[in-house]
């Protein structure tokens, strides 16, 4: 059984639906509720054994109605937030004073927007952030349950592979499920490990893999991007599952956290495409229709439908997705999203003109990159004139 300890200052009746929604999706997942204690007492409690990972509500200092019955203590209102607690735990783990556990943030969406999203300083402390409201959607609850289990097993794997003597590049490849002779991985990813003389805390390795490889597209891409690059409409293609399984066998990510984050290696997908039989062009340069025709012929998967563009006039040489509409997009028809702190191996993200015109960007926290601002303004003006 994987045990998560969940600290929240709200009353049990309010938060129990979220807990049960997730717990019911993970057979071996147990979530134990507790109210926050005074700071020294809380630190002491978290230094004890008895749990594998931690869930924190963002604002532990708002409501205090207690979960005294489950925690066995009277409790009292606290004046610290999750970020404060998480920072202390990470520091203590780095110093070897306590075990390094996965830490997850659960909070109401409005509080995430009002407080957490505005302050960058705490963003590296948590392995996963969830809006509580989303947990009531069964598919999201199932995904979060998988991720929570993957985090615990992943931390364990990292501890085994990278702790103790200092990791080498070979350890990183092993961590990422790659053979030692995988010769296409950007060396700047490997040097993240090899430039550190002493072993890093487990949560630092975890943060690197989660943030720089799994969350942001680049060498690893998610299912939405996979479908876009293969030009396939997932909703209408009965053979999508079979195609996905086939591509997974040659390019699937099997490294740490893979049971919670389904990803594929972009360079291996391109290599797989090049080796497909038939006279076909480069994956990036062909239309969705041509890609689907090639795969039908090469793999015998007849029930694959090409994705449709967001607008009939847009190209079908999909390579990315519109971040606002979450639909396949040829970057030619999009505008760069302003993204700070990208590493060289990260893909640039785009939004479509349709999304720009719809005014949906701000609500999603998206802004057009200054490099594309003039183009966006000109396209916006043209569209308005023709409307």
């Amino acid at each position, binding site marked *: 059984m994987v045990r998560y300890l969940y600290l929240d200052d709200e009353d049990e009746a309010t938060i129990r639906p979220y807990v049960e929604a997730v717990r019911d999706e993970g057979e071996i997942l147990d979530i134990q509720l507790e109210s926050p204690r005074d700071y020294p007492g809380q630190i002491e409690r978290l230094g004890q054994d008895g749990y594998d990972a931690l869930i924190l509500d963002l604002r532990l200092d708002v409501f205090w109605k207690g979960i005294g019955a489950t925690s066995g203590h009277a409790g009292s209102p606290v004046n610290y937030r999750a970020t404060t607690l998480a920072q202390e735990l990470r520091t203590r783990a780095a110093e070897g004073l306590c075990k390094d556990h996965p830490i997850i943030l659960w909070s109401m969406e409005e509080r995430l927007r009002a407080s957490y999203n505005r302050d960058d300083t705490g963003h590296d402390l948590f392995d996963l952030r969830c809006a509580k409201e989303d947990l009531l959607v069964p598919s999201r609850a199932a995904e979060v349950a998988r991720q929570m289990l993957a985090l615990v097993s992943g931390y364990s794997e990292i501890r085994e592979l990278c702790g103790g003597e200092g990791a080498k590049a070979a350890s990183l490849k092993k961590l990422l499920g790659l053979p030692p002779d995988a*010769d*296409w991985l950007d060396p700047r990813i490997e040097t993240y490990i090899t430039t550190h003389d002493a072993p890093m805390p487990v949560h630092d390795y975890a943060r690197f893999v989660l943030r720089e490889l799994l969350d942001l597209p*680049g*060498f690893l891409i998610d299912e939405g991007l996979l479908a876009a690059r293969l030009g396939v409409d997932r909703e209408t293609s009965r053979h999508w599952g079979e195609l996905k399984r086939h591509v997974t066998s040659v390019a699937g990510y099997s490294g740490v956290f893979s049971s919670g984050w389904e990803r594929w290696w972009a360079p291996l997908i391109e290599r797989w495409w090049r080796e497909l039989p038939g006279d076909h062009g480069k994956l*990036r340069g062909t239309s969705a229709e041509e890609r689907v025709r090639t795969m039908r012929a090469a793999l015998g998967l007849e029930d694959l439908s090409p994705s449709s563009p967001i607008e009939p006039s847009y190209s079908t040489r999909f390579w990315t997705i519109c971040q606002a509409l979450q639909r396949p997009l040829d*970057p*030619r028809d999009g505008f760069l999203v302003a993204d700070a702190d990208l590493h060289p191996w990260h893909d640039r993200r785009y939004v479509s003109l349709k999304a720009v015109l719809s005014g949906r960007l701000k609500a999603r926290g998206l802004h057009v990159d200054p*490099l594309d601002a003039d183009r966006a303004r000109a396209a916006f003006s043209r569209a308005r004139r023709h409307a």
Partner: protein
Amino acid sequence: MRRVQARGFRRERANDLRRLADELDACRLLRDPGPLIAAAAQCEQRGTLTRQREETWSYAISRLTFADLPRNALFNLRPEDASDLLLTLDVDASGLCLPDGCLDDPFISLSVDIVVEGLSVGTGHELVCAWHLDRHKDPQSRGNSGEGTAVDADRGAVHPMYHFQYGGRRVWEKEDFGCHMLLEPPRFPHPPLDVVLAIDFVLANYFPYQWRDLRADNDTYTSIVARYQKRIWLPYAAATASAWSLPGSGSPWPASVLWPLLVG
């Protein structure tokens, strides 16, 4: 070349592409360096062996997109209402893993497309301007002229081994050519361009002020370009000079007049 050396050869070239991507991204001359990073990963992978069991390298870059074209590149633009211009570069290249200083042909295959696409504001029609450079797939060594030029075996046309021509697939697949007529010839002999030299060519022609600043201020960029000029243009120049058995010095033509992109 031995396998271990070939691995180092490919890694060095892959890292040059990554460094180039960094430098261009920092100057915001590339809209998206992704295709260069992907090409680096591909270049580093072990390629197919030739029939003689020789090691090879390759990459295929599709639609490397540059920043918006500056106004000074749009001088004499026609039609005048062309707008929303986007310049992309495609490079397909492969070659043997050859040691530095080798004067053999550096490529097994090469295809470069420089494409500028836009829209006519007045008509809404798509506009395209495309230049294509490639390595002739089946060069004949001597034609009847005795001048040593390659000849197209099918049509008898002069077909220099490395040549530039207007058009390419992106233009030929269009249906509306306005008052323009497309023909395959002429094919201009031109030194080959890998992606490094193709990028330098594009910047020199379409981003001239930024290119001059880059050449003047950025040692990393300039040294990468110089290295690939030597690897790719020196064999070509040596082959050209061998027609007259001339050394480089003593020529009435300063090299910079013939090769304005040369470094130093």
